[in-house]
């Protein structure tokens, strides 16, 4: 077994697996899709049958009426993100996928909280709202409804703080995101 005649020797041991499979962080995928019936079903179905868990999902129009944007977050510790994006790309109606870099991305979520707040607790709830720049949008004798916008982490933090007062209900939209600067998301 002689030495190979090539001067440019490559040791097979040096070869490494291309691409990172599991990143261990939260990923925000911004997906541009054709605005056609059934597209969301295709995406949801794909996630279900491949065993990927969607953490949040938000769908809405874009500047182009033929195209919708789906913003989807998922956990890169549980899923190989490159598999998720490659499988998504196979859907004919999916035009573009961006796995947004956290430091170059603005993300926001809207949440509504209905919190138990009678005379004794209301002032304290209002104080927390002020710190979070949350808006009280409805008040009754025994409860308030608060609107909060911010990153997912901020909304989580708000939830933790108001939970002890008695959280009657809450609704969250899931994050939407856009890239910073001039470039397209």
């Amino acid at each position: 077994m002689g030495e190979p005649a090539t001067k440019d020797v490559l040791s097979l041991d040096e070869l490494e697996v291309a691409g990172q499979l599991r990143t261990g962080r939260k990923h925000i995928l911004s997906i541009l899709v054709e605005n056609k019936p059934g597209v969301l079903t295709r995406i949801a179905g794909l996630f279900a049958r491949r065993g990927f868990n969607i953490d949040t999902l938000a769908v809405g129009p874009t500047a182009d009426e033929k195209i919708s944007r789906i913003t989807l977050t998922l956990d890169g510790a549980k899923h190989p993100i490159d598999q998720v994006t490659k499988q998504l790309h196979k859907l004919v109606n999916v035009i573009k996928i961006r796995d947004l870099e956290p430091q170059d991305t603005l993300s926001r979520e809207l949440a509504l909280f209905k919190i138990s707040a009678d005379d004794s607790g209301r002032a304290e709830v209002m104080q927390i709202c002020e710190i979070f720049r949350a808006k009280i949008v409805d008040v009754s004798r025994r409860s308030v409804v608060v609107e909060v916008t911010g990153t997912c982490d901020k909304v989580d933090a708000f939830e933790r703080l108001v939970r002890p007062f008695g959280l009657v209900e809450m609704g969250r939209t899931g994050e939407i995101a856009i890239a910073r600067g001039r470039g397209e998301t």
Partner: protein
Amino acid sequence: MRAVDALMECLKAEGAEVVFGLPGGANLPTYDAFCDAGIRHILVRHEAGGGHAAEGYAKATGRVGVALATSGPGATNLVTPICDAMMDSVPVVFITGQVRTELLGTDGFQEADTIGITMPIAKHSFLIQQPLELPRSIHEAFHIARTGRPGPVVVDIPQDLSRAAITYEPVSDVRLPGYQPTTEGNQKQIRLAAKALANSRRPVIYAGGGVVCGEAGTELIEFATADRFPVTCTVMGLGAFPAPHEQWLGMLGMHGTRSANYAIDEADLICAIGARFDDRVTGQLTEFAPRAKFIHIDIDPAEISKNVPAHIPIVGDARNILPRLTAAYRALAPDPARLEGWWSRIRAWQQRHPLRYDDSADSEIKPQFMIEALYEATAGEAIVTSDVGQHQMWTAQYFHFSRPRQWINSGGLGTMGFGLPAAMGAKVGRPDQTVVCIAGDGSVQMNAQELATCVQEGIAIKVFVMNNGYLGMVRQWQELFWDGRYSHVETGPWPDLVKLAQAHGATGMRCADKRTLVTDFKEALAIDGPVLVDVRVTREENTFPMIPAGKPARDMVG
């Protein structure tokens, strides 16, 4: 013209010379259009038969197959062929009727949510919502089915829309912004792969169905013989590399040869081409090719690192990539002598562990002998389809396929009942060739009704049933892994297959003596028209060698 007349024009423009189908209420307009369309329509007896026939046609010819069904039960009968085509990357366009738009969502008569049902098992699907969309959707369906990684596309047409009058304008382009398959292959990656191959001492080429559907057989031979690379193929890839070749190791995987599986086990570099590391190939994934680095060439980027992490991925068309890889490899002029040690190890395995069976001393027909006899009787030239089970694996082992598209079977989904209708479709597509179906007595009954179609249409397929009166593969697993507790695997001698053939108007024959088997087979092959041969084989023969499910290749038994 009516939308359905435009549909006919589209089919003709796409070169669809034949369609397989069965009419019903919701696709009556389409069938009316067939009266004047000048397209050959083959009336099947069950939509599943039509679907598999379209697959057989596509696999034998490389062209897009077309299958039609009505709404509801017609469409649900197509579910198995659609899924089968998805798993094996077969280009087929399935056109289904749907209830009138005003009935959609009301549980109307023969209504089924065909798009919803088939969404996870189709490459793409179209629900026609405006009659004007129909022509473009048909062209897009053909385009999607045949390009990139081929696959099934479903077009569902509500009955009222198919009758609507439209102004037909031929469509010459497709607009699919989200569908741009990569075909080129990155040159830098190709050079890196060539370098890795030049530095490997124990390389193996592992080729799959992608080489067949990518029409890259010649390119594969060129590449493999650029040096003395050992070659193994998956069950889908058989024929991509000629079996009678000194670099051929045989099939790999669960019922592959020991030499192929041991070579994979000891390889330092595996070059996978159009193969997807299926569990029937890898066995226990963590112990698959533990010493190897992987080059993975595939047109579907999602296959890269899906099961086995790829060190050098190359996304693109094998037919495009392989010549460039061959050239890049030749330019490095590696010393072929470095593979000598590897080959002497492989030759030792081949000598010690050839495929073998204990032949009978009397007239008894061993199933492996039956395949060898058929190989001899057809001079190894026939197109062979099969069902799924022991007979499929014995065919893969003992029929030495020499060219792509010669071997047509259901590998991914493992569909019993695939072989007979697939043979019908293959014969329609390649009337110049002898087409034989090797079936089991269990599986042949799953689509035997298509014999009537063959007789009516004069499609002269030859069906050879390996009859052991058992669901043989399941029986084998019960014997080996379930303490021999046979549970519902014995089918007995029913039906009388000779009479079954005759009842359909085909010729029925029975063979039970190995001494005359080759002559009997030749006789059957010479008959003009469809023939079914009931071959009585050893009842409890096992398919060996075998890697038990979930075990590593080293633990092969038998």
